[in-house]
């Protein structure tokens, strides 16, 4: 068990930033991203402690993080904006500003999020995390062929989007 803990600590040091960054990209909320990153590693430990094997730790961490983020949005959706506003809540960009201290980061994330949903994560993983197709396919639980097609179309769509925005200016 001690050996497992040591290995787990190494894994945490290696992937904590990447998972946190991924959570920031998905939630635009640094505090929430910290919680989600912590929860991701807790889930990883629970999985390892139950005696199960993991083939690719990085991809597995991304899978956990994605599932947690989906759960996070489901919960958020359940407490509707209307209800929150009735209770005096006003949405602000303060939290967003905390992490996206440069307008370029914010604009880059917004641009990626303008893509069709199925292309966003593939493009993010390729351009930001510089992952190969195998890693992307494993992290998103899709085939390599599917990842290749999505990446190709996503990058094409991104290029077109930037061109259109420039022409618009």
């Amino acid at each position: 068990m001690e050996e497992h803990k040591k290995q787990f600590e190494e894994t945490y040091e290696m992937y904590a930033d990447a998972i946190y960054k991924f959570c920031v990209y998905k939630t635009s909320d640094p505090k929430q991203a910290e919680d989600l990153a912590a929860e991701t590693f807790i889930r990883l430990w629970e999985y390892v402690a139950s005696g199960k094997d993991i083939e690719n730790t990085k991809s597995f961490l991304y899978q956990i993080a994605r599932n947690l983020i989906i759960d996070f949005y489901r919960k958020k959706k359940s407490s509707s904006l209307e209800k929150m506003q009735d209770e005096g809540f006003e949405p602000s960009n303060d939290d967003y500003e905390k992490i996206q201290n440069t307008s370029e980061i914010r604009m880059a994330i917004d641009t990626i999020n303008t893509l069709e949903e199925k292309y966003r994560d593939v493009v993010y993983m390729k351009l930001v995390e510089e992952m190969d197709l195998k890693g992307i396919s494993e992290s998103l639980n899709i085939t390599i062929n599917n990842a290749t097609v999505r990446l190709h179309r996503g990058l094409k769509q991104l290029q077109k989007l930037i061109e259109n925005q420039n022409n618009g200016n």
Partner: protein
Amino acid sequence: MAINEEQFNKGLKALKEVRLTDDAKNVIKTRIFSHMATYVPPTKSPYFSHIHFSYKVFATAFVLLFSISVGTTYASFKSLPGDILYPLKTNFAEPAIKLTKFSKTAKEDFDLSLADTRIQEVETLIKEKRINENELEKNFILFEKHLDEKKKDRENNTPKTKDLENTNNISEINALNFKVSQEVEIEDEESNSRVDRYRELIKSEPKLNNFYETNAKIKLDRRRKIDKIENKKEEKEKNSLLEIDHEDNLTDKNTDDSESSTIQDPEDDSEDDEVEINNNVTPSALPIKPTLSPLGL
């Protein structure tokens, strides 16, 4: 919001450099490790494991038992009297197959096929010189049982007298009676031919002379005799109906009856009794009472 390629690339570069601060990293690490220290992996309930284990054991046992049962039953079809599997064949497999026969005709056919099987078994036993009188007796009892069941099935399959009474059309009744009696005759002949085959088979084997004399002969003769008596009884009933319908031919019919009664089995020594029984047939035993006939009015 417009972004050019250069800005986008800058944004990507900045995004790549996003890191947890050292403080945040340590806080998260502490949180994770405190969870790890207290976390106990869930263990499966022993009760659940027991059920799971039992389920597997029972499922495996069931499949094994089923396979063995089917295999053994299938193998039993080739067994002969005296074999270990023979009781399985006669007490379980064959009755089970009969249960799958729904029509009465199918049941009758199956009874006859079983009687044939018993004959074939005796043939094989004689051929293989595996003669055992005790086992043969069991085979013979089964053979009789099949013919009895066949007879019972046939009776259930034959229109009842009271059903015929509901019809007032005498020609229809006569035609139906004639048809039924012909069918019965054919079916009886099917049984009798098998009785004859069984008798001939036993008589052909010198070692079975004792068995034939002490056991089979009496029973086989009795069976043949009973069938004959009933055949003649039905013949008489049929002729009586024809008498009512065609009074002009009465004399000819009686002559035919007396002629037919003279045909007898050389081994049948009870012909006088049969004739007596035939003569005792009363009008009430007819499938239809004469008073119901339009011709009787």
